């Protein structure tokens, strides 16, 4: 809807307003080409530095009666440890996966929240390479522990649930292989990427569109511009929710994949 409105507006003004495109996301800061140091790379490094500082600062002098920072860190850690890792992977094996899941959750969460926190305002995960890198870690982990536990042959044999009628087993086997090796990592990476990309594009559209209408429009368009800013505000709140949710879903799914590889049957 708003795309059409802005599109016709641009037409009327002789192409004055440029709707944001995916090109907005490629922002090299130094150099160019494949070795460019881009804005998401800097944001990612900043997030790692901030997370490390925060986690060390709030747990260095851990006390029985926690400070506010320690309490916040412990709550977050407890959430990932208990509600995600333990409840999904199971109390027997979960502990050794908590560091992986916690790091992943915090990294994704902070990078997602950077999408709306000024002056950063860039969701790192909207560059597909970063979710792919995170997914590769999960991918290697769950296949590795599965193959290590039962051996390569049995791992593939276990992909098919037992009790299926014999004639359908080959079909299901291929389906399971495609799901385990292609669709799962693909959806894991694309879900995170797509949500962050689309959310940020939407915010860009409402904010730059509102700005354009406020500056260049007549009285009616100024009102529409104000409406656009209100939408941008509402969507920012919504975006914060999505950012939490996507960090949670990514960690949750990583945990279910690990749990599947540890179970006797997938």
């Amino acid at each position, binding site marked *: 809807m708003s795309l059409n409105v802005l599109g016709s507006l641009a037409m009327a003004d002789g192409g004055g307003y440029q709707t944001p495109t995916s090109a907005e996301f490629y922002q090299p800061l130094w150099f160019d080409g494949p070795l460019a140091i881009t804005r998401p790379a800097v944001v990612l490094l900043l997030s790692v530095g901030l997370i490390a500082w925060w986690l060390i600062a709030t747990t260095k002098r851990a006390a029985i009666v926690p400070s506010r920072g320690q309490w916040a860190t412990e709550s977050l850690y407890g959430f990932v440890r208990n509600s995600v890792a*333990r409840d999904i992977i199971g109390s027997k094996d979960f502990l050794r996966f908590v560091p992986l899941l916690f790091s992943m959750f915090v990294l994704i969460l902070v990078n997602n929240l950077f999408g709306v926190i000024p002056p950063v305002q860039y969701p790192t995960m909207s560059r597909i390479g970063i979710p792919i890198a995170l997914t590769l870690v999960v991918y290697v982990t769950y296949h590795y522990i599965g193959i290590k536990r039962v051996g390569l042959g049995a791992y593939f044999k276990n992909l098919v649930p037992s009790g299926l009628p014999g004639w*359908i087993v080959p079909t299901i086997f291929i389906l399971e292989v495609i799901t385990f090796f292609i669709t799962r990592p693909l959806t894991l990476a694309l879900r995170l990427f797509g949500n962050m990309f689309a959310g940020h594009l939407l915010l860009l559209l409402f904010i730059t569109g509102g700005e354009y209408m406020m500056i260049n429009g007549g009285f009616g368009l100024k009102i529409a511009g104000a409406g656009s800013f209100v939408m941008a505000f509402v969507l920012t709140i919504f975006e914060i929710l999505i950012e939490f949710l996507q960090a949670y879903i990514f960690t949750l799914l990583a*945990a279910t994949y690990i749990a599947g590889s540890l179970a006797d049957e997938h």
Partner: protein
Amino acid sequence: MNAGPPDPDAGHPRLEESSMWNVVSYLISGPVMFGGIGWALDHWLGTEFLVPVGILAGMAVSLYLVWFRYGTQQ
């Protein structure tokens, strides 16, 4: 029925419910796989109707697998 709060040490209390997110992967795999087979057969045989047939068949197989995995007690 088991009364009282769930035992935190009892297996994977939230694995089943979380596995529901995996259903998406299965529902994509089936139509893509069978649709792809249909597309290849169409290409090979010079027909045009096998892609939709493949997609529908893939959807059926996916739904069957999802039902078998998550909908039945084994």
